[in-house]
């Protein structure tokens, strides 16, 4: 059996579910935000790992073949604010379910896309850049710091223009609104109070001129590259995620040397799936980052890439294709 751990609003899962259903492959989708409405139990000494869904008891210990660890939902995540328990209850409940889900790793001989521990480790951008460089992928000149003087020196080294981005998740959740930090161009920091930098380290990188963005989605040995262009077929000067409309994701080919290194990179991270951001600037490809559990549903739909089918192949064959 294939187990999918996600949430009910994760559209990427629907693409995979459709393929699984069409092929009549045995699967169990658990939207983990709903676990609080389901019954589960783990027993010893005769080890069993039971989840009940729609009145059926699934003993994962003797049925589980593969897990797609997609985006497990949190308990109460989709509950309206006024119906949620207090924060301490939510935190406690989340922690207990987290441990239950993590415990699935105790079931032996199971193929994971991706192993959650590897996902977690791979999310670190410093680790990513170090490994990418080691493998031979070109990376932009980079300085990760909270030191204003370092930033000023780096700006000078890079000809007076650099980009800045968050070192970890760029989402800011305020009480009434949420915000997002995209990649921004910096030309001077002289007037900025030092304490703003000191508060949190940030990534600063050389500005890659005349850049064209590429998104390379990898599933095992399979590569799905797309070029990110405006309707006019020009590249995007700024952070392409800022642009909501008028973007095209065009399936393309990348040099074999680049895709080979990216596949190797994903494997070295211990991942099966990875979504890599690359940039081409003056005929040179640069590695920017990998999203170990990156979004791809829009590429399946808009660019017609068979990513869901490939994920299913890997889940069915346990990584041997």
């Amino acid at each position, binding site marked *: 059996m294939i187990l999918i751990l996600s949430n009910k609003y994760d559209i990427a899962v629907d693409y995979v579910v459709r393929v699984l259903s069409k092929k009549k492959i045995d699967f169990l989708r658990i939207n983990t935000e709903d676990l609080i409405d389901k019954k589960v139990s783990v027993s010893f000494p005769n080890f069993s790992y039971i989840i009940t869904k729609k009145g059926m008891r699934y003993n994962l210990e003797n049925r589980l073949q593969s897990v797609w660890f997609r985006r497990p939902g949190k308990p109460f995540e989709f509950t309206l604010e006024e119906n949620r328990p207090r924060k301490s209850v939510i935190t406690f409940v989340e922690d207990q379910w987290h441990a239950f889900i993590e415990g699935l790793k105790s079931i032996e001989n199971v193929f994971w896309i991706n192993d959650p521990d590897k996902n977690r480790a791979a999310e670190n951008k410093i680790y990513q850049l170090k490994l990418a460089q080691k493998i031979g992928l070109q990376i932009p000149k980079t300085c990760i710091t909270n030191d204003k003087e370092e930033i000023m020196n780096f700006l000078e080294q890079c000809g007076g223009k650099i980009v800045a981005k968050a070192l970890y998740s760029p989402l800011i959740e305020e009480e009434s609104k949420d915000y997002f930090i995209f990649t921004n161009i910096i030309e001077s920091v002289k007037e900025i109070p030092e304490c703003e930098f000191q*508060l949190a380290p940030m990534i600063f990188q050389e500005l890659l001129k005349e850049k064209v963005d590429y998104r390379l989605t990898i599933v095992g040995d399979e590569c799905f590259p797309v070029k990110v262009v405006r309707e006019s077929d020009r590249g995007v000067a700024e952070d392409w995620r800022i642009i909501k409309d008028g973007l095209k994701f065009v399936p393309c080919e990348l040099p074999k040397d680049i895709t080979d290194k990216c596949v190797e990179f994903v494997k070295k991270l211990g991942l099966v799936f990875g979504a890599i951001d690359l940039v081409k600037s003056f005929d040179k490809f640069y590695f920017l980052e990998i999203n170990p559990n990156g979004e791809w549903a829009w590429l399946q739909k808009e660019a017609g890439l068979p990513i869901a089918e490939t994920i299913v192949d890997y889940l069915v064959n346990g990584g041997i294709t």
Partner: protein
Amino acid sequence: MKMNRVEPFSFRFKREVVSPSRAALKNNDEVYDDYIDMLMVLEDGKWIYAIDGKEKRKTKKCDIEKGEDQKDDRIWR
């Protein structure tokens, strides 16, 4: 150093997420079908699979997910 009023430098570049969170959406035009394990949406008076819908997703997650999603968040936190 007093830091209680200081915000990180990166906050200077924050942009408001355009769409609401899922919980805030209260969307009556979509429903998760537990029997087929897929999300259904109401379009032109008919219930269809959300993945076949014309409408792009409207949630905050969708806003931020295009290309970015470290929302595994050490699984959750």
